[in-house]
């Protein structure tokens, strides 16, 4: 085709340049390409990295090296090869990491040693640091990930698979992704086949339940596993331990290492490709513990929002993180009213209300906990006590989930200023789930019935959980950042000025917690939503 006007050609050329420039900014960036708004965002990621380095250092696990000149293992970031991207709930930076002493695990199905293949896989493996920022909470998190390719897949791409990124794996990516803490502590491994996760597992050198295994599982799930060290009854496939973890095979691994004399500093003098000498450190028989990822659901999505694809972790297909699975607050309304109308609960709430409305110039909060005799809907309540806050605010009472102390299905306390439940008031529901899960009793009952009530002279609030996976995800955010930071973020909702009671709550938690309110001295609880004017308003339940 002949271009009639030079301007048309010039215009096409400009658009083409612009298109490729935008593509590049969105994905791969070079230092010189950093422009607003990404520049600000990337500065935040870098700040986070150097704060982490300042507090935790750069050291990694060391092994005996052949070169005497390498004394300690240090990690360095290659910023100029960093990759920036965005998921539904967050943004992340994937930064290549080089070491003085790097190592990787080569998984094998038998003891047979094939040195050349091992070395080939090892050379094709690499480490990346993922720094992730949650869009809603602003919270950062990070994990080290080692990409370990399958030999056939590696050869297909001429021994270089570095074009892969967590959110852009080749559709035929086959191999392993090993997730670790910054200090190198193993978290878990994902086995990938044709770009999809086929297995999530931990591995140890022992068929027994070792302290290392317990630590690995708990570190990953961020929840007490209840596992105790000891010998397994038997080593069978699908021999379920707890928390959805079971022995799923005996494998062999070669631990390959390499010493790199010219690693560092960040964006090192060797251009981020230090000269290294690989060698076999050890061959081990390992027991592989698979994680079905179901209990608690999508626990691996911690700190990443609801999107299980964040971090590239993926979730088992039977894990439902679809928001549509959240409970309808209207469907729960009758239960909330019935619960509040229960004689035991209404008496306590009325007594609590009296502590506000009678002379209480000192603004002391009072509260109580509701303990059932058994974890079922037909159970009566154990006697409960109203306690005051020893230091003004109410102190929560110890959570119980056993037959002697009772089953703490809810609590109620006063807010003299009339405000809705605070983040700390509701997070204990997620925290206590671990105790319930460990007991193995009434888990579904707890999830379906636990609630938090706040009594005020302007009416009472009740909170229930409508989407547990999302709530647990937020709890992990809460748990892993300082209370001061979490509170600051919470207060920033609505522009940092006083908000109508319940407005911040619904804005922050409305997707997975239901908030109900009743008029003073009544139990006519109505579920609330955030209205278009930014104030809570009743949901119309027909």
């Amino acid at each position, binding site marked *: 085709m002949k271009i009639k006007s030079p301007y048309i050609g010039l215009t096409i050329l400009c658009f083409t340049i612009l298109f490729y420039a935008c593509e590049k900014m969105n994905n791969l960036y070079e230092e010189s390409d950093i422009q607003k708004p990404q520049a600000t965002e990337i500065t935040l990621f870098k700040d986070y990295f150097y704060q982490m380095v300042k507090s935790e250092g750069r050291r990694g696990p060391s092994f005996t090296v052949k070169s005497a000149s390498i004394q300690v293992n240090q990690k360095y970031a290659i910023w100029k090869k960093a990759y920036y991207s965005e998921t539904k709930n967050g943004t992340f930076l994937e930064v290549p990491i080089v070491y003085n002493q790097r190592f990787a695990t080569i998984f094998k199905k038998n003891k047979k040693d094939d040195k050349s293949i091992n070395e080939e896989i090892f050379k094709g493996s690499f480490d990346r640091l993922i720094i992730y920022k949650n869009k809603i909470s602003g919270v950062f998190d990070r994990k080290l990930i080692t990409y370990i390719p399958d030999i056939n897949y590696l050869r297909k791409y001429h021994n270089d698979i570095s074009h892969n990124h967590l959110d852009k794996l080749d559709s035929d990516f086959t191999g392993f992704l090993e997730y670790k803490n910054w200090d190198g502590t193993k978290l878990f491994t994902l086995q990938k086949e044709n770009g999809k996760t086929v297995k999530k597992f931990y591995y140890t050198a022992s068929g027994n339940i070792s302290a290392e295994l317990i630590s690995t599982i708990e570190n990953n799930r961020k929840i007490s596993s209840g596992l105790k060290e000891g010998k397994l009854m038997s080593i069978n496939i699908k021999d379920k331990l707890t928390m959805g973890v079971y022995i799923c095979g005996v494998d062999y691994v070669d631990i390959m290492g390499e010493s790199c004399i010219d690693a560092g500093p960040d964006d090192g003098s060797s251009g981020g490709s230090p000269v290294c000498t690989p060698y076999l450190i050890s061959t081990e028989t390992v027991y592989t513990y698979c994680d079905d990822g179901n209990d608690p659901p999508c626990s691996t999505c911690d700190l990443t929002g609801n999107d299980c694809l964040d971090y590239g972790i993926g979730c088992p297909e039977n894990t439902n993180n679809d928001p549509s699975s959240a409970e309808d607050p209207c469907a729960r309304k009758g239960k909330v009213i019935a619960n509040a109308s229960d004689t035991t609960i209404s008496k306590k709430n009325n007594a609590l209300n009296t502590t506000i409305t009678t002379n209480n*110039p*000192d*603004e*002391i909060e009072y509260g109580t906990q509701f303990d059932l005799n058994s974890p079922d809907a037909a159970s009566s309540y154990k006697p409960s*006590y109203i*306690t005051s806050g*020893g*230091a*003004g*605010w*109410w*102190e*929560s*009472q*110890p959570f*119980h989930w056993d037959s002697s*102390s009772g089953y703490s299905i809810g609590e109620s306390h006063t*807010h*003299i*200023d009339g*405000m*809705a439940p*605070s*983040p*700390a*008031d509701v*997070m204990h529901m997620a925290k206590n789930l671990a105790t319930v899960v460990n007991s193995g009793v009434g888990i579904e009952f707890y999830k379906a019935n636990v609630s938090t009530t706040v009594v005020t002279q302007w009416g009472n609030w009740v909170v229930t959980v409508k989407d547990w996976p999302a709530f647990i995800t937020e709890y992990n955010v809460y748990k892993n950042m300082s*209370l*001061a930071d979490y*509170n600051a973020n*919470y*207060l920033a909702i609505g522009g940092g000025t*006083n*908000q109508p*009671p319940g407005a*911040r709550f619904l804005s922050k938690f409305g997707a997975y917690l239901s908030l109900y309110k009743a008029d003073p001295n009544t139990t006519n609880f109505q579920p609330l939503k955030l209205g278009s004017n930014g104030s809570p308003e009743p949901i119309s339940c027909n």
Partner: protein
Amino acid sequence: MKTIISILSILLIFNQQEPLSKIATIKAPQNIDKVSTAQIVAYEKANFKYLSSTRNLKHVYKVGGVIIGFEDYNRPAGYDISLEDYKERILGEVEQIERRKTKESVDIVSFNNTKFLIRKVVRDEEYCYYFVSETKKNSGIKGGIRFKKADLSKAHKLLDELLKSIKF
């Protein structure tokens, strides 16, 4: 004679001072003003914009511009206070704190193998600290101290001495 002895015994019994705590030994502050509780209450009302629960404690004293007090508390069996959890709940009351326009901080300190939570509240240059001990055999000691900025160091010293004197 017997009647006289009986009367003297009764007088002695009545004259015996009740211990400051039934569950621990504790030393009352030194150099206290010789004023009644009613006068302390009146002093707080006259000199502070915001009231505190300190004046209502069983043992309350005035030391110059500082009001300090304490009393025993009891908890049913199994209701021991976790000071760490309590700290989280206190600092978690973000919107209430915002609404009251107070500055709040919480410290957990340890004296004589007993942990104390100290909640420090500052509002319009008025200071109010609350303290509560960990629970020992279903009981503990709680208290408070009330003062203005000018008495900050004096109040800290008084509180420090009081907490250090508590032995369960």
